[in-house]
């Protein structure tokens, strides 16, 4: 079990730092379409922000509640990814052929752009959850057991 850190300096710094880290993670995630970055890196940064919050405020703190909830969502990211791919298949193309995303009023180029963003979000969610669950499984076994066994 991870307890909260008792130093006020660490706590105050964390309060400022964590939102910045999260914002940067989102920036990297969405910037990935036009430059270096993308779902994997963005997901790691988002996960790192939550790990920071758990390390500073402890597992039980209200600030870490989101991280606790996220842990149950293992696989949601893959579902988003596979869902976008499946929509492409329903549209008549190959798996992940974004040109076949049947969204009215969008040109093919914008469909591709939208498809890439959606799959990258899926990747980011999964990487984030995996990063958090690695930290948990290294720190305390019983949390992982509870989270999977219900």
């Amino acid at each position, binding site marked *: 079990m991870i307890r909260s850190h008792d130093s006020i300096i660490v706590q105050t710094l964390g309060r400022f730092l964590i939102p910045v880290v999260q914002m940067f993670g989102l920036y990297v995630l969405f910037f990935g379409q036009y430059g270096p970055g993308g779902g994997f890196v963005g997901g790691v940064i988002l996960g790192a922000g939550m790990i920071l919050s758990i390390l500073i405020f402890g597992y039980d703190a209200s600030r870490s509640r989101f991280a606790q909830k996220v842990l149950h969502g293992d696989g949601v990211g893959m*579902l988003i990814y596979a869902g976008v791919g499946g929509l*492409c298949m329903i549209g008549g193309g190959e798996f992940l052929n974004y040109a076949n995303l049947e969204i009215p009023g969008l040109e093919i180029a914008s469909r591709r752009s939208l498809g890439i963003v959606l799959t990258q979000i899926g990747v980011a969610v999964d990487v984030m959850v995996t990063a958090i669950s690695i930290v948990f499984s290294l720190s305390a076994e019983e949390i992982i057991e509870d989270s*999977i*066994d219900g």
Partner: protein
Amino acid sequence: MSHQLPAILFLLPLFAAISMPVVCLKHHHWSRPISVVILAAMVPFSILNLYNVIRHGEVRYAFSGWSAPLGIEWVADGLASVILLLLSALGLLGVLFAGPTSPKALGGRIVHYYTLIMLLVSALTGIVFAGDLFNLFVFLEVAAISSYALVGIAGGRAIFAAFRYLILGTIGASLYLLGVSYLYAVTGTLNMADIAGKLPMLLDSKALIGGLLFIFIGLGIKMALVPFHAWLPEAYTYAPEPISAILAPLITKVVLLAWVRIIYWVLNATIVIYDIPILLLVAALGALASVIGASLALAQRDIKMMFAYGGIAHIGIILIGFGQGNPTGFAGGVFYLLNDAVMQASLFYIAGIAFCQYGVKTIDELGRIGKQVPWLTGSLIVVGLGMIGLPPTGGFFGKWYIILGALEADDYVSVAAVILSTLLTLAYFVKLFECMFRQSSTRSDDQFEEIPFSLKLTMGVTSAAVVILGIFSAPIVQLLLNQALPPGL
């Protein structure tokens, strides 16, 4: 719709695996029906896919619309479609078998079990369909990681076996990846068809030979070829019953298929590197494996251990078929692979039922169930006939075509190895039956509980399949000769 089938077949179990932990978070008992439905849906889809391939030729599926050398490609040809039908049918039977035995054997980890099984099935589908070497590696690793976890799922002694499997399997995967990187360095591509086009000019390249050697050793470890088989018997023996019943028929055979694909589709099988025809090497390794595996099986007293070594010997026999380099041997190898998978499944179902229902673990205890449990005894006799290779069963016809192929190629050592292995198989089954019938139970008033229906069903279906494959061997082999042969054979 029909051109999407290869992708659908892969995505169905993958989708199920990733949504299982979320869906079954609150309702553990949903995991079994979900898996059964998904695998039951895979069977007709794979039949449809096979039909489609037979009618219209092979399907090449380019993911996200990027065509072959650039993108990721799925190749659904005759061989892949036949193996996929086998894979989905045995997966379904394995999950049906797991139902009544699982809660006790798995230590309550039901959701873990079904999630990992679905992941395993989708990874094996990926190995069967993968059209490039790197994706083959990815799916090999996904399949391997889920099987390490499955072997060790219930804890106890299996954890040691799982750890050993993990170490050896990881060494195998690393060697394979190293070999792939050598080939990539030489040819500049990972797509199998693309490499096949570029290789003839590069046969003198030392990097190519090094890479091939690494790939062969890596896959050899994964498919428990004889010098590298150390992980298999313990992993399958100490794994819980519902798990060894799925792993034993599928893992090694599908990896063997990947090996065959590299030998025949990527390399042209007739190539000679430094005066060594590689097919001679395949046949020699097969002969070695078939004899050594069967001799080791003869020395076992634990039933599952004996069957596991039997499986190692049969990998050798299949390789002898593939090593002959003629259509008869190749089709015989594929046909024997189908039979062997069915027989291994059946044997591990029988061993699982014997242990879970009657507590029988070694052949000395088999006498307790000899005449009292006709279902079990009957299936064991049928499958035993198949393993030995007596005429009405598929095992006989498989060996028959393999020997015909070897005679065609004038490879008398292989013929001798197949016959010797058959005799050794006969020996260990005689030993098994002798223990079963001679030491009849002294306590005839033993109360035996009835075998649950789904166990009877799985055992009955596989035992019947051993015979049915034999009866319909001619059309099946004809189909394989027409559809599943590699180019240039």
